[in-house]
């Protein structure tokens, strides 16, 4: 059962608002999304997980890259310069925070960094709240995370009702804590809080990857994807999916280049100019999604591309449940 956030949390939010832009789960038109808040009252911490993941803050659904005029004048516009000061992403679940950690590895680290991502990410401080309950759709533990995972969080809070306990995890966390007078509470981390909520069976991700890699050419994908309608719900709701397309658009003499979310589940995702499509059917496309999350990401970034938030499970229009799929590979025979 849900319970409203303790006073400790609301106090904290009020203090945050004095030092930074705060983004928190808010209720908009009957669903919970992350958006900027002006007062602690707006934060909808008690309304269940947000329908959309917070990735929009660092990787917007549509982001202008550059713009120009088609008519030789200066009527074009410069792209959005990004946030002016620090932003606090408050009240995310540890799984969503963990997804940001993955995005950091992909877009913000290594040889190829994404300046647009970094611009938004650098100013962002992530404060997560440890989960004290789980839903049927939760499976963070299956993906190597957990209800109190600290990956991706700058500060992890535990809601203890009238007060909250903070684990300050990163330098950014230290900085922000200093700004609002929040103290690291290492004692709290040891405070017994009852049993951790069950969040999916733990899984042997290495074994899963091995079995998936073996099954690339397997016929089973065709059967699994029979009911897939090829929409982008799973990927667009996923806090870790990060594929995009770059488009050029023009109106009234202004031409704009933007990047927009794309989905590996869309046929056009891999369609080539010649019309040839290396992933011609839902089977190849669904396989790509699973392989990417549980094989390629592990290979390249050392963590799976799925954090077990359960959004795709709960919102898939045809109940194509990724847990069932991964479980089937881990079943007795090794293949479903």
């Amino acid at each position, binding site marked *: 059962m849900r319970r409203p956030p303790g006073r400790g949390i609301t106090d904290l939010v009020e203090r945050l608002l004095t030092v930074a832009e705060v983004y928190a789960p808010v209720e908009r038109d009957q669903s919970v999304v992350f958006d900027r808040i002006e007062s602690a009252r707006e934060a909808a911490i008690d309304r269940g997980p947000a329908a959309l993941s917070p990735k929009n803050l660092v990787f917007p659904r549509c982001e202008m890259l550059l713009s120009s005029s088609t008519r030789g004048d200066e009527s074009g516009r410069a792209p959005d310069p990004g946030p002016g000061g620090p932003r606090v992403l408050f009240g995310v679940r540890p799984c969503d925070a963990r997804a940001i950690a993955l995005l950091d590895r992909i877009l913000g680290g290594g040889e190829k960094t994404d300046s647009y991502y970094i611009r938004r990410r650098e100013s962002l401080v992530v404060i997560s709240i440890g989960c004290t309950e789980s839903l*049927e759709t939760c499976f963070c533990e299956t993906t190597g995370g957990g209800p109190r995972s600290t990956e991706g969080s700058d500060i992890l809070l535990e809601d203890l009702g009238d007060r909250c306990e903070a684990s300050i995890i990163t330098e950014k966390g230290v900085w922000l804590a200093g700004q609002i007078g929040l103290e690291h509470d290492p004692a709290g981390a040891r405070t017994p809080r009852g049993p951790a909520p069950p969040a999916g069976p733990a899984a042997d991700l290495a074994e899963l990857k091995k079995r998936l890699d073996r099954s690339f050419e397997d016929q089973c994908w065709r059967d699994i994807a029979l009911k897939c309608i090829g929409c982008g719900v799973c990927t667009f709701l996923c806090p870790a999916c990060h594929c995009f397309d770059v488009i050029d658009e023009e109106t009234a003499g202004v031409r704009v280049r933007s990047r927009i979310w794309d989905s590996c589940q869309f046929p056009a995702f891999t369609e080539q100019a010649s019309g040839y499509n290396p992933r011609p059917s839902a089977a190849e496309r669904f396989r790509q999604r699973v392989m990417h999350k549980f094989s390629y990401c592990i290979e390249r970034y050392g963590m799976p591309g799925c954090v077990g938030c359960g959004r795709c499970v709960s919102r898939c229009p045809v109940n194509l449940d990724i847990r069932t799929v991964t479980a089937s590979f881990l079943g007795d025979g090794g293949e479903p």
Partner: protein
Amino acid sequence: MEASAIVRTVRERAAELLASGRVDLVIGFEQGSMPMRAAPCFVSDADGTDRLVWNSFCGVNLARFLRGRHGRIAVVAKACDTRALVELIKENQLCRTDMVVIGVPCAGMVDSAAVEEITGHAGITGVEEADGRLLLTAGGSPVSLPREDVLCRSCRRCSTRNPVICDIAVGERAPEPEIPGFLDVDQFAALPSEERRTRIEAEMKRCIRCNACRNVCPMCYCVRCFADDAFPQWVGRGGDPGSVMSFHLVRALHLAGRCVECGACERACPTGVDLGILNRRMSADVYRHFGYRPGMAPEIPSPLSTFSPGDPEDFMLEPDRGRSCGCGG
């Protein structure tokens, strides 16, 4: 007929069809991975028919899954699925002779999100149905809800509960509701333009262009959707609100006279956009102006493929109307 009896009959008929070789495939529903979920399933041998179920969560329109498949197919279809089949047959997408319709009367499907809302997101771990009620296990405790209270929005205004085309009828005919008309449309239309716009813009703002509404729709089968076409790009793919709104406007127009109001799009939308707010306008207009209800009769031509000399014209500008008249003021 009890739900369990319907399930038994569906399984028996499906098994017979497959065993006798009359069909190569049966498309129906199976129990989903959680309570309150039923998922489309594809059964190609008689042994597999035990997977088939029928309950209040079979909201997906299965007509969506017949196109492009070879061989003869049986489909477990509720009224709105059959209405979509009728339109698809009319549009040369399906061949009536290649399908066997196992028709199931429908008392409306349950909106699982509404159930979750009512039960305070307590976590539903079990669901059974009896006597028009849902018997739920919510947060570990039993809860009983009348189905009527948690029906999908589209089902609450449903006008056709029995299959329009049917080869094998399962269950007793459901009483057809009085056609509820278009009260919702009229009420919305009565609002001031500015308020309508605000309401619709609020809906459209939630759209993330994931295409679930389009892809789950049985009538959206274009090889390439206008929204994905780059030349000409009628509607932008980016985030500008005008383009998002236009995407839904054009989709509503493309469905005008074809939308069977199954509500599959609304159920599929991950952000809960009230797509009916546009589609219902078209349904009302098509019915009132052209007397047409999609999917009700294969022989009646689609309303946008024809015309009547007496079609309404009062929407048109008549600059001289009243002006040239010297006696009426």
